[in-house]
């Protein structure tokens, strides 16, 4: 069972002045794994996420992806190594139709013609073919989230990082997203930073709980949900004897 990790951090630390937002996090994801990263507000989820994407340069520690060190690499270099990034607020080319948004991502590694084919596949995979020719600036928030996911997938990443992908979605869209994420797992690894416990229940197998910048607990859904201290953290009470 010593399958090597696809992405692993060791001792990852991010300090802002006197505040330690991420504190010596050791974290690993295997190929094909779907992992949720949860924790209350201010637990360091977003900072940790940004350390992985190259938007922040960690103060110390390392991030290794497929045997390559990522610490210090720029965002575009990280993406090119095979990591897709879905940001918290949908970040799209508002003036362009959904189809062209997605094609732009595929163009990174493919010819124009091949990009169009990949785009069609992604539109079908996420079931948003109906939106293909509409300017994304006019789409609803949830639809934009789905377009961005298709866009990220069109880059054919080996690992996708998703920051609160279900935010602002209708119940129907949430269900669709959960299905898509479950289907994708296996073909690629996914790390989902999420707040919404219901959504996590729908998708997750393995969960990592961050609290005060540290890994507080790791386990499967049932274990985590049943854990008394995790419930307390989420209810906002002090978790006594956290260590």
């Amino acid at each position, binding site marked *: 069972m010593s399958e090597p990790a696809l992405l692993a951090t060791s001792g990852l630390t991010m300090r802002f002045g006197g505040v330690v937002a991420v504190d010596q996090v050791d974290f690993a994801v295997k190929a094909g794994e779907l992992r949720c990263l949860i924790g209350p507000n201010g637990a360091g989820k977003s900072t940790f996420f940004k350390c992985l*994407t190259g938007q922040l340069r960690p103060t110390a520690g390392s991030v290794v992806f497929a045997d390559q060190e990522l610490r210090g690499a*720029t*965002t*575009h*270099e990280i*993406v*090119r190594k095979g990591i897709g*990034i879905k*940001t918290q607020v949908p*970040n*799209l*080319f*508002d*003036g*362009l*139709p959904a*189809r062209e948004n997605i094609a*732009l*991502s595929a*163009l*990174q590694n493919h010819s*124009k013609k091949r990009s169009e084919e990949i785009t069609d596949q992604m539109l079908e995979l996420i079931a948003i073919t109906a939106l293909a*020719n509409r300017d994304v600036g006019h789409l609803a928030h949830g639809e934009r989230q789905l377009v961005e996911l298709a*866009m990220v997938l069109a*880059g054919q990443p080996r690992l996708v990082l998703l920051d609160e992908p279900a935010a602002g979605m209708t119940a129907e869209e949430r269900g669709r997203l959960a299905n898509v994420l479950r289907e994708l797992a296996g073909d690629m690894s996914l790390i989902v930073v999420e707040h919404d416990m219901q959504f996590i229940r729908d998708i997750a197998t393995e969960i990592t709980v961050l609290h005060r910048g540290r890994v507080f607990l790791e386990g499967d859904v049932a274990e985590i949900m049943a854990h008394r201290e995790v419930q307390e953290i989420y209810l906002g009470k002090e978790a006594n004897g956290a260590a």
Partner: protein
Amino acid sequence: MLRAISKDWLGAGFVTVIGLAILFFVPVLFDLFEVLQMTKYVVLALFVLSLAYIWGFGGILSFGQAGFFGLGGYAFAVSSINMGQTTVPFLIAIAVAALFAAALGYFMFYGRLSDVYLGVVTLVVTLILWKLINHTAGPEYVIGTARLGGFNGIPSIPIMTLPWQPDQEMEPSHMFQYFMAILIGVYVLLHILIKSKFGRIAISIRENEVRTGLLGYDVRLYKLAIFTIGGAIGGAAGAMWATYQTFVDPNIFSLEWSALCLIWVMAGGVGTLFGPMVGVLALEYLSFQLGQTDFINNLIIMGVILIFLVLLLPKGLFPTFRDFVTKHWNRRHE
């Protein structure tokens, strides 16, 4: 989608045909003075293309486009006086401006300067070039046999020859046609570039820089390439300006030239190549007419136009007009 693209190519084809018609018929239909006047517009149209491209299709707003114009002009002047021919100096002028743009662009884009800083830095660089070259009046500032001349400028710059007829100075009508051919060529090349994969990514950077980076594109490198292409075109225009005037002085680097270039692009509309060229024609003609009077000078006119454009017509004349026409056209055909 397909229809939009073919319509776009149709527009470019149409502009090219008009350009070719101008190339062939202007020297026949107009007298010498008018042809000379129009040669000036052609050179300035090429100059404005440099900014129309980097601003409209790469989202880079340079406040110092005159810097490349001036470098091209001076590089051509110095090298053509030294070499006694003009074809290689023309290429040198383009190369000097492009290299300078690349070096400056490296500092700006790899330093991740924001838009405001970018505007200020490009403007200041041009100012410094202007000051530097103004200070070169003394006899010690010589490159080969060419004296830089400081504020007096460099006189007697050779008139360009055709590359395949190096011994024959061009007649004004031939110069007009040669320059017009260059302008059409650059226009067509830019159009192809904009429609290519490179161009699509450049536009996506203009639309959303962060997302383009998140898709794995090296935004800095693309911007650097776009800026360098703009510098090269500006340098070519500067060389043509120098040979057209047979004279350059430091004022080629002045803020007025950078401002004029901006005003032409804004008047013609950011995001098109054709509009800014029309902007040159319209505004140069206007200031030529108004410039006949004493109590009002060119700077006042340009200043008022710039403020007016920013406040009232932020999209520019040409796109505003185009939107107006298409709106009415669509209404009639519904």
